[in-house]
């Protein structure tokens, strides 16, 4: 009637979902270790070709897939994270030791709050975390009510790649267990938020009381199929943390 199209953020493929990500983009990637890592979107970004990226993630890749593969392909110039070194972070480790990737190390709670602040329109905030440590060197400090705080600035991004459990075409999201982690705050902190989900439900089928990320934070959503450890949404178990079906 008004000439506007009905709202649909649904993309038919991961290729379509990641189209247009430019070289040099700042890209938030959800996940804590493998939980909540948007592997299909990262693979699509790898195929899409954008390079000279700055990546914001809690970690710096595990094993050889997902974020580690993006790093291995030399597509990431700089990474902002809290915990790059892990037992299986050999891709990052080698690049870092060779001086081929920049690292900004941020305490995990400050990382989360900087992302949250960006989505909430807060420019910077005083936090007690890190005061008196090497990670607060050169930063403004202030005593407030007898306690010492460090000024930390909001951290925003051009793109967020997030993995959620289910969505509707408006982009309302629900997550699954600890795979939620950085998803909701990254969705709010990026100019363009791209979400992969197991499946996309009819509008109204996501319980409004259970929506964790309201759709206004989401720009594109793509279904990638059910995770290997679920059948019709029910947990059936796995025998490895990598998620191989048992």
């Amino acid at each position: 009637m008004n000439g506007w199209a009905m709202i649909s953020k649904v993309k038919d493929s991961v290729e379509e979902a990641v189209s247009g990500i430019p070289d040099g983009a700042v890209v938030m990637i959800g996940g804590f270790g493998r939980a909540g890592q948007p592997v299909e979107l990262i693979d699509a970004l790898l195929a899409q070709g954008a390079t000279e990226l700055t990546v914001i993630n809690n970690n710096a890749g595990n094993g050889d897939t997902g974020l580690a593969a993006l790093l291995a392909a030399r597509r990431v110039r700089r990474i902002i994270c809290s915990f790059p070194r892990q037992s299986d972070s050999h891709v990052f480790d080698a690049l870092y030791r060779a001086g081929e990737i920049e690292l900004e190390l941020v305490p995990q709670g400050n990382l989360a709050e900087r992302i949250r602040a960006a989505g909430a329109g807060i420019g910077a905030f005083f936090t007690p975390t890190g005061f008196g440590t090497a990670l607060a060197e050169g930063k403004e400090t202030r005593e407030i009510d007898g306690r010492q705080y460090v000024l930390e600035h909001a951290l925003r991004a051009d793109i967020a790649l997030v993995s959620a459990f289910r969505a509707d075409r408006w982009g309302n999201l629900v997550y699954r267990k600890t795979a939620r982690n950085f998803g909701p705050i990254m969705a709010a902190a990026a100019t363009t938020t791209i979400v992969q989900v197991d499946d996309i439900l009819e509008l109204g089928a996501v319980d409004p009381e259970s929506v964790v990320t309201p759709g206004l934070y989401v720009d594109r959503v793509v279904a990638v199929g059910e995770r290997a450890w679920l059948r019709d949404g029910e947990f059936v178990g796995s025998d490895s943390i990598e998620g191989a079906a048992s």
Partner: protein
Amino acid sequence: MTTTISRDQLAARVARDIPEGAVMNLGIGAPTRVANFLPAGLEVILHTENGMLGMGPEPAADRIDPDLINAGKQPVTELPGTAYFHHADSFAMMRGGHLDVCVLGAFQVSERGDLANWSTGAPDSIPAVGGAMDLAIGARQVYVMTDLLTRAGQSKLVKECSYPLTGVGCVNRIYTDHAIFDVTPTGLAVIELFGDNTVSQLSALTGLDLDDATITDVNHKELA
């Protein structure tokens, strides 16, 4: 010779000080073992910084849920009463003083309660801080659980930390394999000795002036 207790005995000793109803975060590594010694049925709520309250033990080998892990990225389970939340909420719980206790490992603790546990400062190491700095200032009671001595025999309790700091004046109590120490305004006080250890032996081992705040009528020799 001094007496030392095993890591599991130490975990059991820490667990004895956790009251029913406590909300607690256990750091990666040895502190995780404290959960193994909480009495069955005691309602203690475990927080994991990747977004969960009510964490349960590891699952059976074929019931691993890759969406359900702890801060060490190991598979865990959920207990009745579990709640999930995003990362910013999780760290707001710490920073906001909503956790009762956290138990952390340490490289060094100073007599003023400064903690060093995230980096040895070695020039060739890859830095990684994770949630260490947030946890160090993020609970009403911050307990450290550690051996008193390094493998090279040096005291981890020191006048000033030589390793990079995790937090300033943040530690309340240190559970070691030799004794338990409280951080007080005048330095470290020994509140409990294991085996036949004495405060003067520990002063010699640590090179620190230690207050004797032990309660003499408590017999903890069964731990040794």
